[in-house]
């Protein structure tokens, strides 16, 4: 596939601007390939993140032609019909430099939503036998493939408007642990996601569901969190 791409990349921090580069177009080229070409051949000062290049690590998400995407699994042919690409940092996060954002608030909210596993057994206990095909385990597995790429967080209008909102990824993680029969921290977790910044702030715009590269459905997850926290509140198990 001969030809050239016109690639506009965000340069600088919050007060930066887009600069345009010419990148040769290639067969099966990904957006991450394009960014890497610029850094390796045109401007070595370009800053961006990546690690695995195969959609596992979740570190290479950027805004591509206005939408947050995992760049390592996004083919140029899919998003650049007119040979133009505009690639910026993820939205809703502070820009450190160029295409790298500060992910700290994202992971802090993950912790506020009690996203860490709380073991119910010690190492002295026997390993719990859990059938992979049991309904409980299937529920725990339903959204466990989240790679914390931040695409849903960048796509979320509520995150944009409400800086305290945990966001789809943190709430999805909390939901996964709520479904995990080995976890012992669900009372505190329900309390955390029922409070200000929790699941009830979601407006169900469904951008997370539409753009999740793992095809997860955080909107449905958050709706279930609303039901569960509502039931727990009405039973007096959690405080408002």
């Amino acid at each position, binding site marked *: 596939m001969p030809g050239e791409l016109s690639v506009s990349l965000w340069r600088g921090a919050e007060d930066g601007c887009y600069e345009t580069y010419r990148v040769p177009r290639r067969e099966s080229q990904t957006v991450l390939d394009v960014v890497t070409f610029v850094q390796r051949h045109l401007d070595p000062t370009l800053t961006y993140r990546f690690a695995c290049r195969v959609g596992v690590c979740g570190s290479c998400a950027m805004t591509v032609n206005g939408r947050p995407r995992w760049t390592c699994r996004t083919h140029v042919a899919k998003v650049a019909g007119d040979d133009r690409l505009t690639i910026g940092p993820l939205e809703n996060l502070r820009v450190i430099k160029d295409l790298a954002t500060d992910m700290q608030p994202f992971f802090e909210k993950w912790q506020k939503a009690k996203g860490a596993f709380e073991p119910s057994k010690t190492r002295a206990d026997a390993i719990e036998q859990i059938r992979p095909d049991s309904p409980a385990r299937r529920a725990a597995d339903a959204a466990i493939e989240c790679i914390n790429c931040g695409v849903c967080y960048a796509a979320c209008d*509520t995150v944009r*408007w*409400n800086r*305290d909102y945990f966001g789809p990824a943190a709430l999805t993680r909390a939901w996964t642990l709520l479904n995990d029969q080995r976890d012992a921290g669900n009372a505190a977790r329900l309390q955390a996601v*029922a*409070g*200000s910044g*929790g699941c*009830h*702030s979601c407006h169900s715009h469904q951008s997370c569901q539409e753009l999740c590269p793992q095809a997860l459905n955080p909107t449905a997850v958050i709706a279930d969190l*609303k039901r569960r*926290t*509502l039931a727990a*509140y*009405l039973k007096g198990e*959690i405080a*408002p």
Partner: protein
Amino acid sequence: MNVRLYVWQRATAAVMAPLVLVHIAVILYVSRQGLTAADILSRTHGSVLWASYYGLFVAAASIHASIGVRNVLAEWTALGERSAGFFAVLFGLALAVLGAHAIVVLVLT
């Protein structure tokens, strides 16, 4: 928004849903029958039923709308949650007072 506000907003919405339908039916009836204000007031005067109906409607609407306004203020303005809550309570009280005044006029005049 926390779970308590969520419960109140959903519960008041559930209360209002049938009330809105009856309210619309009443509007259609009044307009199709060509009732004047005097005709309406003669029917509602001293009516405990209409006072209760619109009293419940006003209470539910005041709570429901103020929670919504709180969210709008918190998300779309620079106000924090506490300030947004304060203004939302004022808004809800204003709705309640205006609604109560309308009911008094409807039933006691």
